[in-house]
């Protein structure tokens, strides 16, 4: 079981989240400014927060003990609206950035699954927005993180490809057995992927609806 | 010279502007038409060149400068003392450019010390700068201008060239120069 119990302040926003979740896919929805991205950034360690955080049996944050694991050690798999691909590296180099050795088979499998195989030797400027977003997704998963933080990861994808990407993500999450927090406004994302659904308003979770059954019914 | 100019200014109700610079640089400026009335140099070459190139009205010898050697605060006259390894750096005005430096080189070459001392030399743009280096303790010794003939190792003739036929300039020159002022030959146009 993973546990989030954090508070933080970002300008007008006062984020206050308390939730437990299993190694499942959690879809987070809510209006602009509700604090969805801020929540993910706090989990990544990119924003300071007070409280407690444990993921995969590891404590990431315990502000009472004055402890906060830096992002370098949390190593979450992230997809943000800005893909942050380094322009001087090939796509393949971008994906394996920060890892020690290249796992060729694993890379090939992911590249295949998320349809970036023909892009591997290209440079970022040659890619469309949608392609760059898929590369960012592969980069997030390739390093086998213990938490996936996906901020509208399919926003730039055409509907047909979106469906295939969802299937890929679902099966990988099942294999890796890690929690994935995914911000999305897409009803289909919620139906097909969500094991849980959080709705945020003004920095708080309104309700936690177990969506596992509905999701599985839709898939079937 | 500063004091003499101030007295002259009061007496004649004019402004005297003194422009200090190296002989070579001032010579270049005059050749390029700088509006100077009088040129004073511790040098024979540039004044005679000016006369030859018809830039001067008349040339005078107006006095002497005294070249001496200082080790720290001490003025010495025995140049072989400079060979002492305790003396690492000796300031000298650039002998290719500055008259005091040129004069120092002549004396040292004459005494056979030039080559031995050469590795110790630090070159200043002029003798005053060399003196500054010694006074500030930046170098151990230096060839500097002295106030009197005592302890001098060489004398340098100061020459003046009247660049424009201006009455006041002549008066100023007469005022500045010692009685022994001599007009040098080959000076008129």
């Amino acid at each position, binding site marked *: 079981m993973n546990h989030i119990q954090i508070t933080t302040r970002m300008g007008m926003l006062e984020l206050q989240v308390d939730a437990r979740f299993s190694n499942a896919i959690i879809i987070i929805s809510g209006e602009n400014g509700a604090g969805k991205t801020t929540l993910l950034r706090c989990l990544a360690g990119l924003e300071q927060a007070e409280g407690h955080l444990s993921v995969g049996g590891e404590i990431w944050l315990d502000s009472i003990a004055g402890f906060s694991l830096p992002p370098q050690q949390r190593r979450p*798999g992230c997809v943000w609206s*800005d893909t*942050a691909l380094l322009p001087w590296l090939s796509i393949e180099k971008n994906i394996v950035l920060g890892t020690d050795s290249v796992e060729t088979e694993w890379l090939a499998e992911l590249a295949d699954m998320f349809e970036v195989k023909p892009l591997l030797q290209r440079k970022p400027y040659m890619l469309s927005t949608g392609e760059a977003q898929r590369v960012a997704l592969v980069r997030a998963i390739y390093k086998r993180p213990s938490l996936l933080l996906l901020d509208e990861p399919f926003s730039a994808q055409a509907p047909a490809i979106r469906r295939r990407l969802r299937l890929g993500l679902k099966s990988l999450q099942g294999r890796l057995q890690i929690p994935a927090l995914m911000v999305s406004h897409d009803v289909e994302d919620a139906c097909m992927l969500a094991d849980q659904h959080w709705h945020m308003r003004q920095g708080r979770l309104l309700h936690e609806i177990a969506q596992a059954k509905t999701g599985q019914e839709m898939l079937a | 010279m500063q004091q003499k100019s101030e007295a002259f200014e009061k007496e004649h109700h004019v402004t005297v502007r003194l422009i200090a610079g190296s002989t070579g640089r001032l010579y270049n400026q005059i050749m390029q038409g700088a509006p100077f009335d009088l040129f004073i140099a511790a040098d024979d070459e540039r004044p005679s060149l000016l006369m030859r190139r018809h830039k001067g009205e008349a040339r005078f010898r107006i006095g002497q400068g005294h070249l001496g050697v200082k080790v720290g605060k001490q003025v010495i006259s025995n140049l072989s003392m400079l060979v002492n390894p305790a003396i690492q750096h000796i300031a000298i005005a650039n002998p290719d450019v500055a008259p005091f430096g040129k004069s120092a080189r002549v004396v040292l070459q004459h005494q056979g010390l030039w080559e031995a001392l050469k590795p110790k030399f630090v070159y200043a743009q002029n003798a005053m700068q060399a003196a500054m280096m010694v006074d*500030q303790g930046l170098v151990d010794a230096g060839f500097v201008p002295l106030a009197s003939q005592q302890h001098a190792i060489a004398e340098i003739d100061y020459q003046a060239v009247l660049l424009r036929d201006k009455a006041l300039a002549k008066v100023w020159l007469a005022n500045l120069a010692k009685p022994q002022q001599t007009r040098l030959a080959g000076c008129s146009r």
Partner: protein
Amino acid sequence: MFEALFISLQLALATTVILLLIALPLAYVLAFKAFPGRTAMEVVVSLPLVLPPTVLGYFVLVMIAPDSVLGGAWQSIFDRSLAFSFSGMVFASVLYSLPFAVQPMQQALRAIPVNWLEMAQTQGMSAKQTLLKVMLPAAKGGVLVAAALSFAHTMGEFGVVLMVGGSIPGETKVASIALFDMVEMQQSDQAWMLALILLAVSFVMLSLVHAINQRGFDVGAGR
């Protein structure tokens, strides 16, 4: 003449190499770290931009004179004077060209998108890895500009080296001083030639700077 030119080139090269090593950490600290005295540090680094070279040269000369702390220490270690030596001149040039090296690097480092640095963090890259694999490649243009400017600025230096070096032929008499003396000695043919060579070196270095800036802009636009 070529001896002086050769010394100028050696001086510019030594100064540039040392400056890159010193200016990079300085630029890094100034670009990213907040600490008391940061502004003071920035002012000190840019001081040589406005200080008359002879003033700086005089300060340095007093600082490295044999009876000073630094000059004395050097003397006891290397058994030779730091003042009026090539090393002393390198020391002075490094100080004099410091802003020309620090400022382009600082700007280039500051221009790195925050997203890239955060990406490096969440990818688990250490500070050293981030520096080598993200920051330096991203700031490459700034580093090259810093090197070219330091080199060109040192080649053209006059007042500082005049004060500190003592224009010793074969050791500290650089091209700009040789040129000055040539003019004083009315050797206009040689002076012309040397001036043209110095002009050409400056022209090439500045063209390089502009080429780098242009290319940096194109990469940014293509992204």
